[in-house]
């Protein structure tokens, strides 16, 4: 039954979008982090999506192939009184851009909704197919 594959396809996409939302959440949470456990400033993370073939070409799911870290330098603020300040008195914050993250969040949540809607439609079609020939 080929329609059942839709749940695999849309489910994998929803799961990938959830992971993206997760990464966005941790980026936003760490937007003002001065240093992580390793003493380095938090680096903004990004998920990379990849097509996941499910049997045939007409059903292609999504998977997260890797999580990358943005290596650019974080925001530096002159604050000599801060305990994490370096010799010159600068504190390095994380390189998270809150605006980027908000946009990413909206995009992820919209894509998630799209996939849920696809699954709902597929479900109602399958239920109607089950009643074929009755009444």
């Amino acid at each position: 039954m080929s329609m059942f594959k839709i749940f695999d396809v849309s489910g994998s996409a929803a799961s990938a979008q959830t992971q993206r939302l997760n990464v966005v959440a941790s980026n936003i949470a760490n937007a003002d982090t001065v240093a992580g456990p390793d003493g380095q400033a938090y680096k903004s993370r990004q998920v990379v999506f990849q097509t996941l073939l499910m049997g045939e070409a007409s059903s292609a799911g999504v998977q997260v192939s890797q999580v990358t870290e943005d290596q650019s330098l974080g925001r530096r603020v002159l604050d000599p009184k801060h305990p994490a300040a370096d010799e010159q008195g600068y504190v390095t914050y994380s390189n998270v851009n809150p605006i980027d993250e908000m946009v990413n969040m909206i995009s992820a949540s919209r894509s998630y909704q799209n996939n849920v809607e696809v699954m709902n439609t597929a479900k109602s079609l399958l239920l109607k197919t089950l009643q074929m020939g009755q009444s």
Partner: protein
Amino acid sequence: MQNRLTQALDFQTQALTLRAERQRLIASNIANADTPGYQAREMDFANALRQATGRTTPAGALTATHAAHDAAVTSLREEPGLLYARHSQDAVDRNTVDLDRERASFTDNTVKYEATLRFINGSVRSMLEAMKSHTQG
């Protein structure tokens, strides 16, 4: 005689199978709306149905018309009957999914799938009615 009774259903069955196939295809496109490099696929429904109901090919088989085939590199395996959707706008990540169009196609296909289901139900109902009427007057 038995065959002639269900003959009308054969066509609708093929149509329903292809509709389900197309539904899955559009679901894949929507799922991959954010995947870099993904090339949206499309099905030439009229042609696929003609091939499926014709005598030359086995039931359910899809055959390609390569008129709109794009030579773009894709990780997807080649499958007959599937075309590459023409994209309206270029994206930086080479993704060619047009979400608005896909959603419209998805709704369109949903309605047509239900219509096919109703046609089948209608045929079955009239067939049952025809069987009943003789004995029950």
